[in-house]
């Protein structure tokens, strides 16, 4: 991808120029006050970063000059080189040279750096302060410096948040205008509104694009973290990263940072076994941990996989029964995937010991809540003795989501597509009353089904979730949603279309009602409530 490389390069240049400006500032301070340790340390840090960045992207001249300057400053710091007039002159020249190299990255005719200056740098670096070798005069080749401003700007994420909110409002109004233009059947208005549609769509994608960052900016922090935990735990772990250049909304990345850290720590602490134990089991002594990101339509999928000891289903089952989360006989029949979902229950932990890095009562429920909060999904697979895989399914953008619109009792609702599994229509005869609930066989799977009207609107005292006679009509439209590995069928009155919606969060005092993730305005101007699948599932479970 050429554009991606181009983008890296632009970022490098912008950063490098900023470093260059800062270096000029600090060295000017140092010239007046050589004892300023802070300026010295800062200069040192900037040169070091510049060297590393330049080397990483392949600008060897820049990294070479930075290296020489860095060495010079380290000598000054250790008092082996004095900050004399001559030395200062050479250092200024060196920093100017850096600036020149950076601004001329794209200029093939720039040629080699001035050899005299390079030699001077070598002299002050190599021959220390007792040097008597003449520092050759460098002809001042930089007198007519032109000032330039960076091509990149930093924007506080808050400003982008505000812009995205405004775009959301605009889209809502746009849909309203389009629907009005159809009602009025005015050709000119239709033309204008379809143009408006295209522009707002472009605007939406530009603003969303401006908020995207590489997932690598988070992933690349993990090699060090994994190393540290592995050493503390005396384990051998090889971390594989993939898909660092997948892009995702910055705020979403922010929200999952702690969760991912928690999962990675868990994997090294409790997943991967010690080398000796692994060899005994016939596994390679080094444990494999992979953190992979990939795009899946509008979503980003992050997979964290280890080849450690896996999760003992029996232990989970016993713990769930012990904590009275499930009846023993039910537990026996529960599919493994559903059993594993108990790991996400608040306070549910299998960790027996607290280590420095994990097992402090912060459980997977916290991770799950974080993922839920932005409308993502998390699931877990594990085979005892083979390893554990966490799959995080995240929206690329917060504001705009694909959703399914439907109606219950004359109220419009939407459910984000990320939570819907499938939509089916079945006859009432295919629904069976089992205990207090209804179940149906949906594509070979027995799924609990609930009449949304009853769940939402019946008096709580006489809610009858298992009563088929409450249903209207012969054909029932069912939206199968999935939360925490559990499927739930929601019977709706009328099913509409699939549509991209802009979710407006509920403002105070309604923001504490967790049944609704927000509202959206339809093209008709009507308010549509966005159902929060995690909350509706929890609500169903408590009322069952």
């Amino acid at each position: 991808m050429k554009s991606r490389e181009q983008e890296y390069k632009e970022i490098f240049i912008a950063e490098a120029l900023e470093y260059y400006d800062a270096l000029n500032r600090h060295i000017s301070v140092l010239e007046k006050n050589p004892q300023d340790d802070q300026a010295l340390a800062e200069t040192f840090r900037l040169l070091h970063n510049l060297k590393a960045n330049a080397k990483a992207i392949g600008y060897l001249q820049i990294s070479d000059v930075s290296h020489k300057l860095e060495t010079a400053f380290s000598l000054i710091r250790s008092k082996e080189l004095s900050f004399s007039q001559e030395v200062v002159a050479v250092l200024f020249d060196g920093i100017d040279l850096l600036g020149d190299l950076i601004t001329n990255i794209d200029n093939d005719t720039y040629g080699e750096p001035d050899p005299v200056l390079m030699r001077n740098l070598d002299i002050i670096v190599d021959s220390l302060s007792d040097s008597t070798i003449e520092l050759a005069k460098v002809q001042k080749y930089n007198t007519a410096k032109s000032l330039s401003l960076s091509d990149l700007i930093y924007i506080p994420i808050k400003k982008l948040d505000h812009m995205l909110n405004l775009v959301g409002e605009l889209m809502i109004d746009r849909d309203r205008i389009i629907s009005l233009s159809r009602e009025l059947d005015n050709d000119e208005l239709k033309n204008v509104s379809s143009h408006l549609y295209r522009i707002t769509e472009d605007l939406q994608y530009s603003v969303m694009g401006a908020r995207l960052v590489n997932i690598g900016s988070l992933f690349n922090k993990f090699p060090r973290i994994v190393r540290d935990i592995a050493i503390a735990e005396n384990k051998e772990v090889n971390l594989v990263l993939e898909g660092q250049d997948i892009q995702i909304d910055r705020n979403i990345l922010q929200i999952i940072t702690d969760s991912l850290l928690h999962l990675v720590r868990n994997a090294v602490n409790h997943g991967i076994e010690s080398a000796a134990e692994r060899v005994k089991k016939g596994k390679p002594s080094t444990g494999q941990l992979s953190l992979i990101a990939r795009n899946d339509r509008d979503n980003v999928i992050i997979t964290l996989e280890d080849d450690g000891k896996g999760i003992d289903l029996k232990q989970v089952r016993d713990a769930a029964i012990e904590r009275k989360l499930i009846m023993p006989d039910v537990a026996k029949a529960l599919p493994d995937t559903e059993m594993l979902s108990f790991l996400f229950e608040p306070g549910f932990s299998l960790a027996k010991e607290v280590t420095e890095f994990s097992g402090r009562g912060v459980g997977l429920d916290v991770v799950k809540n974080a993922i839920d909060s932005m409308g993502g999904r998390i699931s877990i697979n594990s085979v005892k003795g083979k390893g554990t895989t966490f799959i995080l399914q995240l929206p690329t953008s917060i504001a705009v989501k694909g959703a399914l619109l439907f109606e219950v009792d004359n109220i419009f609702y939407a459910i984000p597509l990320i939570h819907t599994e499938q939509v089916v229509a079945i006859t009432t005869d295919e629904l069976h009353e089992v205990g207090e609930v209804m179940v149906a066989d949906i594509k070979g799977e027995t799924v609990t089904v609930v009449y949304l009207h009853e769940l939402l609107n019946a008096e709580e005292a006489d809610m009858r979730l298992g009563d088929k006679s409450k249903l209207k009509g012969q054909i029932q439209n069912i939206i199968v949603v999935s939360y925490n590995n559990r499927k739930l069928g929601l019977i709706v009155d009328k099913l509409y279309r699939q549509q991209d919606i802009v979710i407006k969060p509920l403002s105070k005092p309604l923001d504490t009602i967790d049944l609704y993730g927000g509202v959206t305005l339809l093209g008709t101007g009507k308010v549509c409530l966005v159902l929060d699948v995690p909350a509706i599932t929890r609500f169903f479970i408590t009322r069952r």
Partner: protein
Amino acid sequence: MSKQGKKETDSVILSQAESVASPALTDPKESPAPEAAKVSAITEMVHLIVFKLGAEDYAIKIDQIKEVTVTPSITRMPRTPGFVKGVANIRGDIIAIMNLEERFGIRQVAEQEGAGSGVTYTLVIEAKEYSIGVIVREMPQSLNLAVSKIDKTPAFLQDINVHENYIEGIAKVDNRLIIVLDMYRILTSDEISQLSV
């Protein structure tokens, strides 16, 4: 409930509401008679919006009110307390609509006079932390009043339930007793958290 109100278009912003207020009065003895309060410019005045809940007159300071509009179509929100009527789209803002009669347990007066046109009004109130819409049955009136006419600490306030501290004071104007509400306290924090069923 969700009948699409064409009326949305004839909602009135506050300044208009004020001018309409006096002529719209049906019962002359209910007139707030703002002229009666002498505009002596020295006495500190307060501008109230007066409305009826049940059989009593209530009032809110005008600076806590964003607008008065004919109640737009309200989308019910299942599983919220009864006094939350739902949400409405008021000029692009989604606002929670409340019925204060239900909130305060005020007995509703049977509607008979005026054949009950069915039109209700919504006061959009901006409190510190939230904005809410409050449904009232009659066109609210505006009233200018000397601050001194509001009795901030009538003795009986000590007698009633301590939770009901949303009453800021009692104003007495021409034999009328007006209960001045403190909108910042209309919802206690308990109630706000109670909203999350």
